[in-house]
């Protein structure tokens, strides 16, 4: 049994202060455990950065679940986060400083360390298959109809 999550963000969504929105769904082996939709605390400069911030907050939840599970029983590691932005995945797996990523706050690099320790892995998922999409924006009726039944059915598989 391991922790599997879906993370997404919507860039500069808030029209008043231009903050992005983080959304994530965490599951315990496919069984939904938490869902979060939250405006981010600071303005980000690119959608990749916004996704990266969302990954970091999702990682916090994963670590909590792993801690609890390890205490009472056990859980397989690494936990898995599905993410639809390849740039953000690249940032996790490559500790480099680029022109457009040099300013990213240290606390968001939290996820990079977790990946290096082997506690969390990040994998790509197509945007239209990412259930966390529903938590970041008001999606169209079609997409809603496609993603939501899975969300409520009790078994979410990437």
């Amino acid at each position, binding site marked *: 049994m391991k922790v599997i999550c879906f993370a997404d963000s919507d860039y500069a969504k808030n029209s008043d202060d231009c903050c992005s929105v983080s959304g994530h769904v965490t599951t315990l082996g496919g069984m939904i455990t938490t869902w979060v939709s939250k405006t981010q605390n600071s303005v980000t400069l690119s959608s990749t950065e916004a996704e990266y911030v969302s990954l970091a907050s999702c990682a916090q*939840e994963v670590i909590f679940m792993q801690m*609890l599970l390890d205490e009472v029983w056990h859980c397989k590691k690494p936990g898995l986060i599905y993410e639809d932005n390849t740039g953000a995945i690249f940032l996790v797996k490559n500790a480099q400083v680029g022109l457009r990523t040099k300013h990213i706050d240290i606390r968001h690099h939290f996820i990079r360390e977790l990946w290096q320790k082997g506690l969390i892995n990040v994998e790509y998922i197509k945007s239209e298959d990412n259930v966390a999409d*529903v938590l970041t924006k008001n999606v169209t009726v079609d997409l809603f109809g496609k993603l939501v039944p899975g969300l409520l059915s009790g078994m979410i598989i990437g």
Partner: protein
Amino acid sequence: MGHRLVQTKWVFCKKVEADGKIRAKSRIVSKGFMQIPGVDYLESFSPVARDCSVRIAFGLALHLGWNIDMIDVEAAFLNGELKTRMFLEWPEGLVELGFLTDEEARTTCIDLQKSMYGNVDAALLWQETIRKFFLKIGLKQSCADPCIYYKRVGDNMCLLVVVYVDDMLFAGPTSEIAWCKEQLSSEYKINDLGSLKKHLGIHYHWNTNSSVERMLVANMDGMANEIVEKYKKVTGRYPVGSNTPGIPGKSLAKNQGETIMLEDYRSIVGKVMYYTTKIAPECSNAARELVQHMSNPGNEHWIAMERMCGYIKAKGKHEIVYCRPK
């Protein structure tokens, strides 16, 4: 050293039980606001189990084929051990009912032996009491979530207890659950509510007919109905049904005009949030937008509110399913 006398108050309420019956309750509470911070109490915060932890307990129970049972502790807060001495005035009505003479009521007071409802730190003292009890019978407290207690032998987990103030959930094999209940009832007065049916306003049932795998279904039809009816009560009509909780492609901006029906807006948003965090992940985004405008809702926001209520009205089944984790 003198002590301040704390007054008391009677609280009467009607409670709807799990079977739909109405029970009239009365309880005597202290006026906790008369306690002095730093003198009568130092700390008052008391944690409750996170939703995530509760669902993890469900997941483990489904995975291992365990039962989930529920109990509540009767008058739980009365078990808390007081840390400082506390004196109460006699409750109202004792003289009139003849339990006490006028003279006694004026010259004597109550020397409280245990904590009671109304005290600022009542929940905390109860939490500490139950913690000591669980540690005494050999359970461990989780470091990740202090409201989770567990028992494990070697690599095997035997029992999981989720404490939500005076409600407790047990996940484990029948024998372990029975053992723990027995231990508890030797110390406290408990109501054994049997298999999990209702917790925090959410109804649960096990779905075993549709497939081989056992599933747990959480249902909140009652709350959904309450939201729709409240909307009707404040606006005078039912919301128009819709397929999604938010208007596709739109997001709400700050209200520039007049504030419209602030109190009613807040009241409905509160209900919607509860519904969303407990069983409706698909409403999270729309609910987040509604919440952000709690201080100043305008026309736009009431349109978004109708959309949300309309979605809930049209949704039909207000359920989320928990399947066996892979």
